[in-house]
């Protein structure tokens, strides 16, 4: 019988030398196969005495285990080497550019709409809509602006003929202000009312700072207790939340709108230089919105008793808010569909605005 130790040493050496899996298989067959060296010795155990059988058997089992382990290890080693070799041939240049991913953008006006909705929603406002083409009652008369009121000339109105009447006063208008939605809301609903009405508005004006169409958001609160002090609080809370600033100085200047009294314009603090406008503390003021307490004639026009109910209204430009917050220099470019502009000033599809999750997110991939 071959010396078991020699056998073991030789086999382990063969295993270590084996260059591939095939050679390992051959070794395995030669040693552990049906006629393998160890197998033969195992068969020989039957001839031995009980005591010898025990000693030699243990020994054989031990060697068998060691060889099996060595085979497995070597096999794994060879497989790994083989894979490494294969992978070396699969190297690619990962600096190559990715496939085009056509991600779109949301227009700044839509983004501002969502921000404004988020803030006023938090304050209990609902969103009201109304038609772009209005009758003069809703756009003017009910807003305390009768036919020859000078305020009608403050706004250059687009008119649409009424096929059923030759009277100019019956012609329709393309709404000059979202305030018309105030009237439609109050006609339908009794106070308490808290709404904002965002939407398209139109005036016949086209130059560096005016476009014939722009976007306004109108606000209206009517109940029994809301004061001018609430108006100031509400709008201050709004501008502070909107511009996402801890400190924002504001001031109010008396003004005139036919549908509110007292009327005011609100300015926010800013710092102006030739090239830059920075919202926040500074020596300059920037007009941001018009507001006031709802005029009793407006309430009356909607069948609401002004001795019992009161409230405030305000209006501001969504496009203007977008320009100020996101530093967009030219109003006219909002409406030009220039893909370069839309990609640059537009917002990522998943950049959502909420008061719980934040209004704006300037991070993220720009693809």
């Amino acid at each position, binding site marked *: 019988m071959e010396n078991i130790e020699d056998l073991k040493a030789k086999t382990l050496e063969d295993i270590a030398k084996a260059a591939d899996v095939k050679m390992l298989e051959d070794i395995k067959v030669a040693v552990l196969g049906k006629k393998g060296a160890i197998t033969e010795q195992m068969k020989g155990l039957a001839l031995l005495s009980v005591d010898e059988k025990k000693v030699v058997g243990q020994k054989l089992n031990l060697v068998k285990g060691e060889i099996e382990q060595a085979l497995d290890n070597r096999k794994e080693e060879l497989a790994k080497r083989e894979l490494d070799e294969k992978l070396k041939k699969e190297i690619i240049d990962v600096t190559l550019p990715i496939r085009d991913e056509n991600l779109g953008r949301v*227009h700044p006006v839509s983004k501002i709409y969502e921000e404004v909705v988020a803030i006023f929603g938090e304050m209990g406002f609902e969103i009201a809509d109304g038609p772009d083409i209005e009758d003069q009652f809703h756009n003017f008369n009910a807003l305390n602006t009768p036919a020859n009121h000078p305020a009608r000339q403050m706004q250059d109105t*687009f008119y649409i003929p009424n096929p059923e009447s030759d009277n100019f006063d019956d012609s329709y208008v*393309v709404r000059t202000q979202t305030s018309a939605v105030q009237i439609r809301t109050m006609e339908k609903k009794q106070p308490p009312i808290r709404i904002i009405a965002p939407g398209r508005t139109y005036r016949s004006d086209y130059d560096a700072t005016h476009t014939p*169409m722009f976007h306004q958001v109108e606000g209206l609160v009517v109940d029994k207790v809301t004061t001018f002090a609430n108006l100031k609080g509400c709008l201050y809370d709004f501008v502070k939340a909107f511009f996402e600033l801890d400190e924002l100085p504001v001031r109010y200047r008396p003004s*005139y709108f036919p549908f509110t009294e007292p009327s005011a314009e609100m300015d926010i603090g800013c710092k102006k230089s030739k090239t830059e406008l920075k919202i926040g503390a500074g020596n300059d003021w920037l007009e941001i919105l018009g507001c006031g307490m709802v005029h009793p004639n407006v309430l009356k026009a909607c069948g609401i008793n002004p001795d019992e109910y009161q409230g405030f209204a305000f209006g501001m430009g969504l496009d203007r808010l977008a320009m100020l917050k996101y530093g967009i220099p030219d109003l006219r470019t909002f409406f030009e569909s220039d893909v370069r502009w839309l990609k640059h000033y537009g917002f990522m599809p*998943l950049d959502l605005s909420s008061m719980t999750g934040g209004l704006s997110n300037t991070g993220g991939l720009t693809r």
Partner: protein
Amino acid sequence: MKFTLSWLKEHLDTDASVEKIAETLTQIGLEVEEVINPFDNMEGFVTAKVEEVEDHPDSDHLHVLKVNDGNQILQIVCGAPNVKKGMIGILAHVGAYIPLFGEKIKAGKIRGVESCGMMCAEDEIGVGSDHQGIIELPATSPVGLTLAEVYKADPVFDISITPNRAECLGVRGVARDLAAAGLGKLKPLNIPKPNSSFASPIKVKVEDFGACPVYTGRYIRGVNNKAETPKWMKDRLTAIGLRSISPLVDVTNYINYDMARPLHVFDADKLKGDICVRMAKDGEEFVSLEEKKYLLDNQSLGICDDEGIQCLGGVMGGNSKGCSADTVNVFLESALFNPVCIARTGRKFQIDSDSRYRYERWVDPNSNVLGSDYATNLILQICGGEASEIEIAGAENYKPVTTYIRPERLKNFIGIEVSVAKIVEILQRLGFETKEEGDKIWAITPTWRGDIEGEHDLVEEVVRMIGLDNVPAESMPKAYFPEQTLKPEQRRVVTIRHELAARGMLETVTWSFTDSKLAKDFRKGKEPVLLCNPITAEMDEMRPSVLINLLQGLKSNIARGYQDVCLFECGPEFFGRKPGEQRLVAAGIRSGYINKKHWLKEERAFDVFDVKADAMAVIAAANGPAESAKISTDAPEYYHPGRSGVLRLGANVIAYFGEIHPAILKKFGIKQRVCAFEVLVDNIPLPRNSKDKAKKKLELSLLQPVDKDMAFIVDRKIKADDVIAAAKNADRNYIAEVRVFDVYEGENLPEDKKSIALTLRFQPREATFSDQDIETLMMKVEQAEKAKCNAVLRDA
């Protein structure tokens, strides 16, 4: 409205600085647009010292100076007789603009000697009229000062006046408001009655007191209109941008801006007969000051003599009876006109004038005689002459509004407490007469205020004077718990926008207007909604489809070199002129390549199936049943007839999609294929607001599905949709999915046939399928295709 500081001080006794005045004006609602210091724009002038004076080598009157401007020593050739060593004057640097010459100072040689600037005389920089010599400033003056630092210019305030504050279209009104705000004292008005020595030979008559409640006239004889308008008046008029014309015209302009009191002067010798104020006859002619001819209607008010309408009352003077330099006898009009009548006439004939501007807002109804006296005094002072007694038609007896204010109301409406004494003080300073009675303070409105109707107006006056910034800011009470902020129909628009952006489209916003020439093909049989007064011919119609503007947007992008464009817009399209005849559309276009040449991907252009996918994605984003929409091929005519579709739910169209018709593209000048979709969002039914938001129970099978391919030969006109439906419906229990993996027409198939190859996924429910089961299912599909689509199984 513009005025100068000195003009303001004519009415207001104040020491306040220009800055303080400007700040207060804005605080009380007279918003300052600008305070202009006339010297601010004059650059290049500094005080400088003459350090050396030498005779010019080649002239007997010129000198060569060495002048120190604090920075450098300059050599200047100067011809002024009063120049002397050590004097301090005003130096104009090279490049400084000299208003008197209308040009800039240049460096150059004067008779061979270098001169780098000029020492200025008073008239050359507009600080005086002296031209005898150069300016000599006090010897102690520092050098290097700017003009604004040396001369106190009369600053010009430019303020914007809201329509309710007509009295502030006169300087006195502004002064009164400032005084009421505590910025000085309003000076008393001192307009003595002019001496009148005779009765006016021209009488006045008013036919329509509704249109003209008061008309006054005064004859002034023997005036000299060639006299010089006094410098102070000329300066003020020039400062606010009015041209001095003649003393008579200047006086009326001055009073218009001083007192917000329009006046008119006729050359009395040109008037024939008496003055009659009456409505014009339809078609009656009027020729304006600017020699423009108007055909009036019977709602326009004319100031007439025997020869017809000489003045469009309160709006515009005529050209034939006006004053000229040779005018000797004047007829001065001071009248009151109905604001509505003025506004209507002005608007109808599109005449803007200072007079119309004031009359249509408010002119103090009791200021006719006062204004006439004021003007008469000034005319007599400047032009000499003799005034007649005043002629008056109608009565100056306007009764102002009496109303009240309750301090309690201030507290409940504004949120501040103001004492009775403070309210009374404010109102009185503004010209109200007050009387306290119980919880009310009664106030009689001054006649110059036309905007006071009731308590809310007095509240505004008090708050305005107290200062809006002194009202506390109180956040909205939070107890009010709102409904959902965005209603479902509003929320889904937001979702649609984000969905389309996520699908690679850029959201744009375009005009609601469009070009009627291009819109013609997009009206779907409706009448155009045209504007009466479009801003340009390209924006004259309310758009019948959003696509028109998107196509224009595409075109301009192509012109800029960007051919691969995906644009969408969510906005209204209009199908009628009445309010509400509009609907919300989510529309988009895709043109060019979805995959450009790329090392990893095949190049591929956008096609109809991209926009079909968009349309279906929009419907799904709006929670609409995109899968159950029926597809037909009757899209509007602006789509390609063979490459477009319509998605319907029942009878309602919910979307159009397809390629844009090549003939339409040609009209737009677009030379590449364009795919488009329009989803009529309003037509997608809103999900019923079921209280149970729980989703349907998810059934997951443990058994593996089996995929089998089957190809069918059908007539070419058979729609894929029907082939798919037939397969799906062959067994709704076990056939889980049907996919089209190939469509083939051509070789090996008859001319009018095509092959549609499907992958069918069979999902076992109870037990794994046997071969027999699968065969049965495939048989069912084959039979269904045969029955529904006349399809034949293609040999494998």
